[in-house]
């Protein structure tokens, strides 16, 4: 076990870096640029039961130190993901991968989870109850403790793989939702998904994004994400994957001090496709600078005293 390795729900990660769902395709897209086996793991593009084209364009808007997206869960659907995408993924990534699942009903979450549970190479199921870009789907399950717990229990009933619930920051008490998921059997919590945001074009006086609103991500949201990771890590005993604006080795360490066992990298992948290997390479020197021998020693370190 190296000084970067951590344990996420019983599965060892060589390092805590996990490219976040929606910013890393099905992995093979990045394998053209570097050997993605250097990653701890990654969470592949959110899968729904049926294929989805997603929202109309424009789907992207720039912000100060961030961006808004309203992709709307575009994905090839469960069958094509299993039959076409996973074989391509397995050809280039040889560690357990994280499957990200979205749904419009508890039944859909259960169906997709049960099918992906049977797939070799999938280490964890990450359940997205927090997509802000789809009406009637995703986020509605993540905004009440009862609904989040219901999805958690339904998925847990059909899989033996660790279940990680991905939470929305667009709520008043994220810790209460995390606790409800933990009580329903969740093995981990990942947060945060994007913050609901908006931009208006001064020339046209209309929203930049066709869907009007979208998910705000990037370095600008890092302090909000860090605060919520800190709150959730205090509230639950299960491991937390911290994400939201992480762009450097220093950010990774800060997230882990807030209580994250592993750290998601999202928007940064879109700006610098090589950001993850760069952060992995930078980590040992940054750890040395702050007197950190092993990353496991600092998880939740900011909660002490």
């Amino acid at each position, binding site marked *: 076990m190296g000084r970067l390795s951590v344990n996420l729900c019983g599965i060892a990660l060589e390092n805590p870096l996990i490219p976040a769902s929606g910013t890393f395709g099905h992995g093979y897209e990045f394998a053209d640029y570097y050997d993605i086996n250097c990653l701890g793991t990654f969470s592949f593009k959110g899968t729904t039961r049926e294929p989805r084209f997603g929202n109309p364009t424009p789907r992207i808007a720039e912000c100060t130190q*961030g961006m808004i997206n309203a992709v709307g869960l575009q994905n090839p659907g469960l069958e094509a993901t299993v039959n076409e995408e996973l074989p391509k993924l397995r050809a280039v990534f040889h560690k357990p991968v994280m499957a990200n699942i979205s749904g419009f009903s508890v039944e859909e979450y259960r169906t997709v989870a049960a099918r992906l549970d049977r797939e070799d190479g999938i280490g964890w199921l990450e359940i997205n109850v927090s997509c802000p870009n789809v009406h009637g789907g995703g986020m509605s399950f993540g905004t009440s403790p009862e609904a989040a717990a219901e999805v958690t229990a339904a998925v847990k009933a059909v899989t033996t793989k660790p279940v990680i619930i991905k939470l929305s920051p667009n709520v008043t008490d994220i810790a209460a939702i995390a606790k409800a998921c933990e009580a329903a059997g969740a093995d981990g919590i990942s947060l945060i998904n994007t913050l609901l945001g908006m931009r208006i074009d001064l020339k046209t006086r209309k929203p930049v994004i066709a869907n009007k609103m979208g998910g705000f991500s990037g370095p600008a949201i890092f302090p909000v994400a860090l605060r919520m990771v800190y709150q959730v890590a205090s509230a639950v005993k299960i491991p937390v994957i911290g994400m939201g604006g992480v762009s450097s080795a220093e950010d990774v360490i800060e997230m882990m001090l807030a209580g994250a066992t592993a750290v998601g990298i999202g928007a940064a992948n879109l700006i610098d496709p090589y950001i993850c290997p760069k952060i992995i390479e930078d980590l040992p020197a940054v750890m040395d600078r702050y007197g950190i021998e092993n990353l496991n020693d600092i998880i939740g370190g900011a909660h002490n005293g």
Partner: protein
Amino acid sequence: MKQQLLTILDNRAIAPQVYRMALKADEPVPAKPGQFLNLQIDGCYLRRPISVHDADGDCVTIIYKVVGRGTQMLAAMQPGQTLDALTGLGNGYDLTDSGDRPLLIGGGVGIPPLYLLAKQLRAEGKQVRVILGFNTASEVFCEDDFAALGCNVTVTTVDGSRGVKGFATAAMEAAPYSYVYTCGPEPMLRAVYRASKTGGQFSFEERMGCGFGVCLGCPCKTITGYKRICKDGPVLRKEEILWED
């Protein structure tokens, strides 16, 4: 795709709000006609996708219009400054279908990528005709550059202050052509699509997130399925285009 640090050799206005920037890398820059660079500009979070105008070994030239904050900052940059670029993005034009008399039609800042295409078609000995569409005479750029390649160049202006009066399509039937390559605003692409009597390749524009095919920010529906403008495009073949109203 490569990530390269490009040094600015020259950056100057060639028409109102239109700039030509010459850049140099320390190794060859991958750049086929119709491909684009994605430039990181200090102070802007997202990169700016800008098509390749000309490329030769480790040198690459772009022509861009100042339309917002990012391009304003780009226009203010000086020779010697550097830009972090993702290079060799997009599919680019396929030259193999051109026939002997390809027709290239560009509108405004859709014109620059046609230059490298014209250069390579001329090198193959093709008889290249080019229509450059502008709104008015003062906006005209690149006319001499295409002429110097030995292309037959027609300028059109909407107000008739220069060349043929009307849109670029007004000059299409002046001579026979074997194939069409085009880049410009979507209304122009639609007009060329309707008016063209041969096959062709059309370069599209969309707001992009990453520029290399992973964020799904710039999708389009085609006859052959969903495509990403940044990775599967920006060039689509005429027979696969599905216009959405």
